[in-house]
């Protein structure tokens, strides 16, 4: 039972990070290979705050999210202002993520590559579920707001969106910061669940897993990536498939999805569309 519980908790923690990346990649259309870095910032910030400074858990969790959001500005401001092509941006954020990991491996306070053991395990199922539910609610409202509409417009056509008065730089930066806050929050929960963190946990592989969930779930859907990430985390664990074969499957899946179903599992629609009587199954966000 404990084993199943821990899988559910891990899956939910992962879902929060995927939700964040979904806002950035799925809805704003920018491809990121560095979001694991924001998870790392959140994890280390909240862990260090409770570990060395005895800050209350919830405050530390929030601080982790805020820290990740601020760090995202460091890479976001110069690269998004320069309006890099989508793959240049992906390479830039990839480099940023790797550089940040090297820095974490060499800082005194993070205990270097050895990692930080003995973090208090505050993360329980109710805490995670509340965070996830809150996250979904906030994401939904954000995407239905003026800002969310601007994000979707940018994904569909940046030039047309700019002509229509959407401020590219500000909207993209906001979307990046919001997604980073989600990842930071997820990192804080992760640190206080595993009670041990190490820089190797936040490599490119982790970024790829997040991205795989978003793409497999569907760009422009909230529920699709959540389902995909749950399936990706929970199923292989339950089937006891070794970590490496899971990654083999991830890679193959990414290629197959791009070749056969580039819109992903849910396309541009939400799971609720299937339950609505007169609902349009193609969804409304396709505009």
């Amino acid at each position: 039972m404990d084993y199943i519980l821990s899988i559910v908790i891990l899956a939910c923690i992962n879902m929060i990070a995927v939700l964040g990346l979904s806002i950035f990649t799925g809805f704003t259309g920018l491809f990121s290979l560095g979001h694991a870095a924001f998870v790392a910032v959140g994890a280390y910030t909240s862990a260090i705050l409770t570990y060395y400074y005895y800050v209350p858990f919830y405050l530390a969790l929030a601080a982790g999210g805020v820290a990740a959001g601020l760090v995202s500005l460091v890479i976001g401001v110069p690269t998004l202002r320069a309006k890099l092509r989508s793959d240049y941006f992906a390479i830039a954020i990839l480099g940023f993520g790797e550089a940040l990991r090297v820095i974490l491996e060499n800082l005194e306070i993070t205990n270097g590559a050895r990692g930080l053991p003995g973090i208090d395990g505050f993360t329980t199922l109710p805490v995670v579920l509340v965070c996830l539910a809150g996250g979904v609610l906030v994401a939904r409202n954000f995407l239905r707001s003026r800002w969310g509409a601007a994000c979707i417009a940018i994904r569909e056509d940046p030039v047309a969106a700019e002509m229509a008065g959407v401020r590219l730089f500000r909207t993209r930066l906001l979307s990046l910061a919001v997604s980073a806050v989600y990842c930071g929050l997820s990192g804080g929960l992760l640190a206080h669940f595993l009670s041990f963190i190490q820089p190797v946990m936040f490599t490119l592989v982790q970024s790829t897993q997040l991205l795989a969930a978003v793409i497999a779930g569907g760009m422009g859907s909230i529920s699709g990536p959540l389902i995909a990430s749950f399936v990706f985390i929970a199923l292989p664990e339950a089937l006891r498939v070794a970590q490496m074969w899971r990654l083999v499957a991830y890679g193959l899946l990414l290629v197959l999805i791009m070749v056969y179903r580039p819109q992903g599992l849910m396309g541009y629609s939400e799971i609720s569309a299937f339950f609505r009587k007169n609902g349009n199954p193609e969804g409304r966000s396709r505009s």
Partner: protein
Amino acid sequence: MFLQTLITGLSIGGIYALMAVGYSLVFSVLNFSNFAHGAVIMLGAYVGLALATKFSLGFGLVLAGSIAGAGIIAVLNERLAYSSLRRRKAPSLYLMISAMGCAVFLENLVYATIGSRFYAFPEFFGRQVISIGRSSVSLLDVGAFLFALAAILGLHLFITRTRTGIAIRAGVSDMTMCSLMGVDLDRLISIVFLLAGGFAGVAGVFLGIKYLVYPTMGWVTNKAYIAAVIGGLGSLPGALAGGLVLGVVETFVSSYVSSVMRDVFSFTLLIAFLVWRPNGLLGQDSEEKV
């Protein structure tokens, strides 16, 4: 000391340049970042390793074998993962995700089947050194640098002097026009991937000899992206210049500043170039087309 650092830097830079050339070739024709290039380099190194240890072939045959092996792998990779996307003119983002998937797939397939062990090549060059002035440099370093120069020069001649080379350059400037003029695009792109794969094979063998062979060694190609960006994406002389600059700068940073901060420095350099000079030193216009 200074001269020795410079030559070590140039030899590492030569290997970076070999990797960056393969990457730039694909970028210049298909206009997307082929993240699977690193995995092809890694597989090339494994092919070379198998030839060297299982069949105990000499250096020349090992090199030839891994060039052929990596070239074929690159062509198959294009056929399976990119060609259908290319035909439906999918956005380059899709190609990039597909490439990313290939990288993860190939790397972990090796991990799951061959294992995560580190393998060493037999010592082809021993520990021979050449003394220049008061400093001594290893034969491998000098050889790698000279070989990289020769290979890239050869590629340059091929691209500028032969009919196929002219077709490739035509494809770079306008794919549609090129196919209207009677060039078989599928064949052309296969040739490009074959060339890129061949260079990946060379880079893989040199990397394997200089360091070790292991499943994630392809991530060294992060350095190839940086080199390609510094030199200008899609430009062959740029890839050479970028590789050499990066290799030399990195070696100097690690020997005079700190070896730990070398990677941080390289990535910062990458971001600085992307922000201030996305066209690189020798690249052409890189604005997103409307």
